[in-house]
């Protein structure tokens, strides 16, 4: 689609303006507030006016001078707030929240070879980290082996290089998969990578029914934001449904998908867009599973979510609370889910990579702490905190340690974990929560009207909304309407900091290892497996059992993804700028 056409579709879907509408419309201030405005506020402003004409969140959402019960007319504490562990889950999904169990401190890590990353994992576990999270390199994310020509220069650079089960075995060497939970950030090739993980678990003797972790496996947000796709939406969604179906039967404690707003936000969306597009993606996955014939309560309890934590503290807290309240309503009202575990939105959070500055990098520790605090006050189930040096490179071990310590200080020293939903009942937070929910509902209705998320993506609707928001933010920063400390104010001359350097020898080691693998395995067996995989892909059966056999024969990730490229085709986007 041309830019012009996309613009028209966008316009047809209607301008999406965050309206500061509240529960009451119009707002009816109390006599006390009216009197205060006349007798106290106006004289004060006459002497010393506001610093700014408009106060807005980082998402450019307008914020009032003060919130009172006038903003919450029509709001019912019983209906809209409730209690922790009960509908509508505004206050959290567990009755005791962090008094019972802290969130999982799950630092995303991966670089170089499987051995390099294995060492970092074991270091992080020894420092009190409670779950693993694998970052794969770009060739792996795109389904290319380390020795593919397009992998040149990228092997092991922004994650670990995994080209076959042999690499996966090295990655989890001496790490018992029965005892740790592992999150894997992999999307287009999620199914074969998961098959490798399950094969390692099997070799270690870990019971699949007991292993736990999360596969990101969210392809829709790749088309929308992060753009690491291989196949077109149809076959991609079929593979997502395959993994959800397989997981429901064989790995009842594993989350087969992490429906992600993180990348949507990093691409420049507003908080409301992040919330809306993520939940609408969730709806799309559910609809695909229902079409497959699964029943909602068999798979919905294992759907998990992943949100960003940006700088605007209260906006973020409102977003998480709204996400829970909105999802339970979607699950119950739209899909008729009966199991309370289907209603409860569980989520991981990562602090905002896009908020980190290259300038004065130690300031990023403070930003990350504020963002992490918002995630905790918003009731997250697990958390990754970014390292101070990530606007320069992948983190050094010492920077990654400070990031982990930030979570530990919030957990053990700040006191915010002592009570569930500590901001619940605040006029401001409850109003924002309601406005976030309403804004997201508006977007969801627009995407429904466009025919669902795949249709909306084909129209370029979410992509355009995000690109517009990203550009508006950049303009505001360039004009210094939004201040970023160290970037457009309080700028100083600086000395460079020490950063992690990834050696190019990883690519050579990987190439040698692949050559050895291809000469030692049974290539007949690999060919047979790939052939049966290809045949299964042209039909409708679940691909997971085929993938499992294929990875165990030590077929490489590139061979597997290529075998699927033939029946599935590849996706090319029309770029919207």
């Amino acid at each position, binding site marked *: 689609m041309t830019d012009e056409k996309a613009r028209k579709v966008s316009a047809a879907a209607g301008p999406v303006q965050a309206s500061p509408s509240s529960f009451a419309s119009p707002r009816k201030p109390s006599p006390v507030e009216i009197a205060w405005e006349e007798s106290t506020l106006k004289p004060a402003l006459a002497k010393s006016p506001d610093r700014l004409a408009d106060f807005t969140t980082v998402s450019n959402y307008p914020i009032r001078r003060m919130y009172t019960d006038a903003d919450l007319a029509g709001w019912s504490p019983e209906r809209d707030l409730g209690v922790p562990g009960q509908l509508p889950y505004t206050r959290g999904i567990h009755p005791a929240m962090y008094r019972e169990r802290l969130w999982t401190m799950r630092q995303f890590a991966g670089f170089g070879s499987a051995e390099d990353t294995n060492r970092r994992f074991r270091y992080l576990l020894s420092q009190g980290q409670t779950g693993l999270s694998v970052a794969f390199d770009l060739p792996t994310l795109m389904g290319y082996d380390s020795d593919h020509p397009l992998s040149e220069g990228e092997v092991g650079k*922004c994650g670990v290089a995994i080209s076959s089960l042999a690499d996966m075995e090295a990655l989890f060497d001496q790490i018992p998969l029965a005892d740790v939970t592992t999150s894997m950030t992999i999307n287009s090739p999620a199914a074969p990578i998961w098959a490798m993980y399950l094969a390692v678990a099997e070799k270690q003797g870990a019971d699949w029914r007991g292993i736990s972790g999360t596969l990101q496996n969210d392809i829709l947000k790749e088309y929308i934001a992060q753009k690491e796709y291989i196949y077109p939406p149809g076959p991609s969604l079929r593979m997502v449904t395959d993994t959800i179906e397989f997981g429901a039967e064989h790995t009842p404690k594993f989350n087969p998908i992490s429906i992600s707003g993180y990348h949507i936000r990093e691409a420049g969306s507003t908080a409301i867009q992040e919330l809306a597009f993520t939940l609408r993606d969730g709806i799309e996955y559910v609809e695909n599973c229902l079409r497959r014939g699964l029943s909602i309560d068999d798979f919905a309890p294992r759907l998990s979510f992943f949100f960003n934590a940006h700088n605007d503290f209260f906006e973020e807290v409102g977003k998480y609370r709204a996400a829970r309240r909105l999802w339970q309503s979607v699950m119950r009202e739209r899909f008729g889910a009966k199991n309370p575990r289907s209603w409860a939105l569980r989520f991981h959070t990562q602090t905002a990579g896009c908020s980190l500055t290259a300038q004065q990098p130690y300031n990023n520790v403070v930003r990350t702490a504020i963002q992490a605090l918002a995630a905790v006050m918003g009731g997250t189930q697990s958390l990754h905190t970014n390292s101070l040096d990530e*606007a320069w490179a*992948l983190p050094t071990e010492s920077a990654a340690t400070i990031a982990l310590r930030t979570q530990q200080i919030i957990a053990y020293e700040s006191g915010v974990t002592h009570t569930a939903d500590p901001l619940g009942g605040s006029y401001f937070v409850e109003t924002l929560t309601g406005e976030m929910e309403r804004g997201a509902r508006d977007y969801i209705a627009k995407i429904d009207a466009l025919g669902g998320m795949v249709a909306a993506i084909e129209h370029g609707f979410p992509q355009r909304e995000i690109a517009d928001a990203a550009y508006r933010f950049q303009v505001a920063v360039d004009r210094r309407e939004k201040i970023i400390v160290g970037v457009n104010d309080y700028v100083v001359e600086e000395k460079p900091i020490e950063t992690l350097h990834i050696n190019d020898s990883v690519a050579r080691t990987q190439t040698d290892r692949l050559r050895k693998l291809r000469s030692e395995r049974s290539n007949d067996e690999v060919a047979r497996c790939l052939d049966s995989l290809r045949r299964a892909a042209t039909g409708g059966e679940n691909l997971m059992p085929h993938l499992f056999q294929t990875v165990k024969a030590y077929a490489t990730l590139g061979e597997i993804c290529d075998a699927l490229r033939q029946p599935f085709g590849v996706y090319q986007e029309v770029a919207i700028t």
Partner: protein
Amino acid sequence: MPDKKIRVLIAKPGLDGHDRGAKVIARALRDAGMEVIYTGLRQTPEMIASAALQEDVDVIGLSILSGAHNTLCTRLMDLLRAQKMDDVTVLIGGIIPEQDIAELKKIGIAEVFLPGTTTQAIVDFIRQRVAHLSAASQPHRSAE
């Protein structure tokens, strides 16, 4: 010649799909009156060099966040030299470690723009650079 629009190719080399920066810069340069061609994602250095030749651009802006900048830039600069396109200004923006900047400039990258750069700074740099090069009155390449 003085009123000719500056032509810029914005390119995303390598496998990375994070295109927020590339798209914001494309729009900002367009708003500043330049002619902007965006290659889209996952371009090889060969594809970028060939697009730059066909589109007869003054400037190539590369957005790289993946850490593959040394490999990708070295190959692109070799290709541009082979095509006698040394007069094209090549810029990079993205996640580039400080210690790599000197080497990138040595192979002919005109400037490395780090996170936090204003779009105006990039517009100004391009205008000055292109004005300087045309003042040096080099004969303009043709696409043939």
